[in-house]
């Protein structure tokens, strides 16, 4: 019967298992019936036999009764348990109302700790786990990758040149080779994603474009919502079919979802494309970086002149294969390795081995993305913050447990079971954790958005950062954190000494330091040290990276690039001819010190050229790429800060007759002519067709591709020509450092008016070229610092609350000491030392942990040891100062203890 606890308790005490109950009941019945019959004059045996006969089929009835009773018992247990939970929830809500401040603090701590984890998880989920939407059977799709291998002369053994040098892009020749020999049943696709300009002039916007090759849409399983996808003949390299497929999103935003979109024209990078179809649903390509539209890959080649030329040299194709069975993968690897080898792009003593990777790749292999590394480390950092948060909550709950001693003791004395009491305390913490978890979802939403922007600024995300995965993660983590933080305090609170707790005031008997609380404070301090050390190391690395000499006088350089816009592409030669004159005029701008012309922008604007040395079959290599070539005016090198080490620079207006003069950098000179004088050496450009070019000078190294270059790059400079391949469209401007911004504005105005209406002008300071590389370092420093500060604040609160609690426990003792004549200084020392001792232990533990964990952050550091003593010392100092500060308020209160009052409290 529901709602009758007395009856239930009786039943629980007296009744055992259903079978035993049924047997006892039936036994009673048989006994009673038999004794009645005996009383009527029957023999004992006959009476028993009669009783059994009157009962019927005893075994089957008994089995039926046991079944029913077992069902009833199960149902009762369930409803009882639910009753307990409901009751405890009521207690929990009341407890929350009584001390809203404490519960708010706990909920907020959980919200931050869990929310930060959820935000990081959201980013990692997207990078490592989640398949982009709209892809059918992603488990069948593999990414084709390869690794260069050196083949020793004896051909017996294949030696890996660099174990981690896995590359994911194929050249067009290799792609075609794989396509031609693809095993039966497989489908092949290639793509390359780029940010390009859609629309014209006024309403031009940036869009992410997928350039596709092969059966791109079939491999990914996409279906058109409207129209069709590319036909095979539209993807051939010999044609330049101006057709475009729109993403569903772009179709809605740009064309309003109109059904007559097929046949409309869309301008991309100045060319007109005819819309042939719209992809269905959420599909946005193979990567997180969402494509807005797709073009045949031959569209890339078109504006670059000869398609064949472009395909041979600069196609970077991400390759995907749909394999129906895993067994077929071995065939694919064999075929692909052969195709890579036959494409013959490798020098004689090396080859390539094909490999398969998963569709979801956080960053393309061979191109380690620092943002991804930071995201992985952040997972660890946020876990540490959660631990600190849990330690803090545990501490708060322990303190609360002490305040509630009498209440809890009363409940125990009234017969509430310890298990039930622990359950009640856990439930209270669970309530706070649930509220914290709910807030955490919003923290995750905001946090993940910030993380995406900071860490992966170039990825065009279209989906919301919080999905069902993240929700589940948040819920489970909040539960785990709540339990983790509340379990020890709940167990502790339930192990009261009843008599003591009921009798006493808070300061009965001697003061007992809580080992658990002390341990928690030590742990918090130690973990904070680890995070702060991490932050300190990353900041030092950032400073280091910002001061790497790149070979350029970065802080005083501007680069202006001028290109004919796509509608006036034919005017490009005219522009190149007019540029020197226009550049000359820039000299009159106040603040301009020097001006030079070049064909390429610094850093990413790189160019290769066929190159040979007389008497060499294979050229020595320093780094994977290079030598890089730039065509420059005589003034260019001194303008950007590259100095001549040996020989001479180009002379102004030199034509040098048929022999082209060449400048090489120091790295190239050392690699090509070790121990010899490079001046006067012969270099054959363009695969030897043009004969010898003579090295006339050696100049200092400058970084070619990255701010951080582990290997110096080979570079060479050729004199700029007004026509042909080496024509300049970049102006380097050296300014007085403080005038750089003003000069940039003036230069832009002057160039725009010079090429009014038909050229695109871009003016950027050199630091802009370096900024993309610094961005992840800034992001890392920002995030780690934020994490470290958060940890510090939480730990400070923990130290304060512990010292404060200790003090309140010892007020009486302090009063006695003062009455006995203890000096103020002695009291101060007593209170402060109780906190500082713990922190010193924590700092020491933290330093040991940091030294041990150094390996984990090493990959995020530059020019800084993971064991940097400066950072370690600074962090230790900061934590000690903070600890002393946290002890000051309790110490001040201890100071003002009036013995007359505290002693009278007895």
């Amino acid at each position, binding site marked *: 019967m529901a709602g009758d606890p007395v009856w239930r308790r009786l039943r629980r005490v007296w009744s055992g298992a259903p079978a035993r109950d049924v047997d006892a009941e039936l036994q009673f019945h048989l006994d009673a019936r038999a004794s009645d019959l005996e009383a009527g004059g029957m023999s004992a045996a006959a009476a028993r036999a009669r009783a059994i006969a009157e*009962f019927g089929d005893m075994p089957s009835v008994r089995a039926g009764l046991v079944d029913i009773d077992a069902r009833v018992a199960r149902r009762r247990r369930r409803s009882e348990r639910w009753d307990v939970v409901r009751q405890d929830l009521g207690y929990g809500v009341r407890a929350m109302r009584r001390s809203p401040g404490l519960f708010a603090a706990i909920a907020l701590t959980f919200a931050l700790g869990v929310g930060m984890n959820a935000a990081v998880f959201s980013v990692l989920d997207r990078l490592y786990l989640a398949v982009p939407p709209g892809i059918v059977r992603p488990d069948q799709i593999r990414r084709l990758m390869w690794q260069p291998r050196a083949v020793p002369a004896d051909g017996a053994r294949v030696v890996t040149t660099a174990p981690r040098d896995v590359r994911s892009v194929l050249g067009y020749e290799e792609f075609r080779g794989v396509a031609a020999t693809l095993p039966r049943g497989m489908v092949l696709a290639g793509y390359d994603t780029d940010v390009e300009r859609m629309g014209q002039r006024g309403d031009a916007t940036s869009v992410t474009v997928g350039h596709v090759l092969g059966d791109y849409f079939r491999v990914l399983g996409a279906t058109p919502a409207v129209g069709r996808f590319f036909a095979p003949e539209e993807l051939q390299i010999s044609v330049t079919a101006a057709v475009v497929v729109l993403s569903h999103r772009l179709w809605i935003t740009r064309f309003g979802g109109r059904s007559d979109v097929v046949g409309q024209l869309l301008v991309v990078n100045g060319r007109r494309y005819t819309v042939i179809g719209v992809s269905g649903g959420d599909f946005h390509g193979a990567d997180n970086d969402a494509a807005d539209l797709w073009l045949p890959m031959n569209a890339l080649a078109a504006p670059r002149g000869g398609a064949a030329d472009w395909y041979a040299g600069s196609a970077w194709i991400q390759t995907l294969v749909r394999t129906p069975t895993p067994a077929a993968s071995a065939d694919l690897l064999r075929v692909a390795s052969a195709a890579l080898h036959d494409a013959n792009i490798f020098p004689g003593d090396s080859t390539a081995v094909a490999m398969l990777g998963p569709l979801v790749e956080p960053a393309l292999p061979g191109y380690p993305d620092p943002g991804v590394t930071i995201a992985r480390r952040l997972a660890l950092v946020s876990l540490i913050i959660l631990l600190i948060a849990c330690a803090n909550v545990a501490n708060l709950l322990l303190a609360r447990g002490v305040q509630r001693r009498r209440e809890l003791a009363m409940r125990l004395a009234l017969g509430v079971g310890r298990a039930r009491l622990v359950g009640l305390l856990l439930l209270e913490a669970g309530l706070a954790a649930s509220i914290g978890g709910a807030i955490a979802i919003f923290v995750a939403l905001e946090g993940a958005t910030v993380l995406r922007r900071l860490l992966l600024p170039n990825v065009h995300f279209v989906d919301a950062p919080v999905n069902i995965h993240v929700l589940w993660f948040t819920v489970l983590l909040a539960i785990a954190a709540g339990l983790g933080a509340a379990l020890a305090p709940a167990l502790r609170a339930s192990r009261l000494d009843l008599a003591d707790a009921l009798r006493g005031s808070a300061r009965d008997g001697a003061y007992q330091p809580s080992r658990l609380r002390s341990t928690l404070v030590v742990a918090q301090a130690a973990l904070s040290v680890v995070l702060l050390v991490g932050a300190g190391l990353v900041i030092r690395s950032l400073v280091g990276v910002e001061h790497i000499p790149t070979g350029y006088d970065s802080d005083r350089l501007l680069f202006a690039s001028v290109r004919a816009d796509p509608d006036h592409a034919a005017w490009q030669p005219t522009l190149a001819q007019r540029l020197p004159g226009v550049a000359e005029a820039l000299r009159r701008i106040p603040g301009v010190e020097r001006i030079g012309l070049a064909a390429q922008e610094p850093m990413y604007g790189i160019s290769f050229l066929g190159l040979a040395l007389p008497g060499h079959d294979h050229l020595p290599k320093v780094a994977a790429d290079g030598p890089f070539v730039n065509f420059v005016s005589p003034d260019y090198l001194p303008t950007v800060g590259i100095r001549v080490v040996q020989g001479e620079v180009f002379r102004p207006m030199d034509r040098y007759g048929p022999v082209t003069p060449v400048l090489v950098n120091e790295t190239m000179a050392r690699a090509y002519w070790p121990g010899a004088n490079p001046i006067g050496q012969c270099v054959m450009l363009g695969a030897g067709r043009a004969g010898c070019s003579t090295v006339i000078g050696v100049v200092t190294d400058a970084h070619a591709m990255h701010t951080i270059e582990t290997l110096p790059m080979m570079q060479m400079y050729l004199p700029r020509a007004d026509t042909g391949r080496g024509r300049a469209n970049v102006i380097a401007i050296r300014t007085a450092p403080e005038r750089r911004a003003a000069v940039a504005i003036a230069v832009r105005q002057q160039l725009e008016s010079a090429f009014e209406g038909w050229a695109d002008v871009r003016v950027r300071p050199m630091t802009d070229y370096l900024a993309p590389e610094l961005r992840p370092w800034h992001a890392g420093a920002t995030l780690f610092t934020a994490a470290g500060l958060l940890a510090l604040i939480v730990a400070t609160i923990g130290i304060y609350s512990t010292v404060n609690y200790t003090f309140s426990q010892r007020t009486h003792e302090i009063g006695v000491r003062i009455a006995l004549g203890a000096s103020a200084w002695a009291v101060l020392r007593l209170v402060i030392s109780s906190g500082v001792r713990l922190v010193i232990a924590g700092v020491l533990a933290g330093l040991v942990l940091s030294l041990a964990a150094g390996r984990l952050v090493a990959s995020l550091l530059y020019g800084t040891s993971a064991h940097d003593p400066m950072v370690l010392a600074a962090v230790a100092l900061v934590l000690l100062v903070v600890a002393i500060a946290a002890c000051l308020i309790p110490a001040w209160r201890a100071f003002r203890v009036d013995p007359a009052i505290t002693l009278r409290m007895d």
Partner: protein
Amino acid sequence: MAMPSSLDLLQGTLDVLVLRALSWRSMHGYAIARFIHDGSAGAFTILDGALYTALHRMEEQEWVASEWGISDRGKRAKFYRLTPAGRRALRAETATWHQYVTAVAGVLRAAPASS
């Protein structure tokens, strides 16, 4: 859960009899069996197994509740009593039973109408 009964008792009738037995006071199974036997002046011979099955089934339906107590013979016995739901069920079943009886009696009394 067969309901074996030598003299066929209509479906549900046993339930009404048990509920009726319990409507005065709580009883153990054997007392209920005697009550029905005596009340019907021995007209029904119900197998005791069927009676206990009915009791436990009604306990599951929460028409009756049970608790262990001491019988007048000084032995531990399981006593059943009516719950409010059981009381409601008894009222409803009794009404149905009376309607049924009235209807059957009416039919038995009636003569066929001349057509």
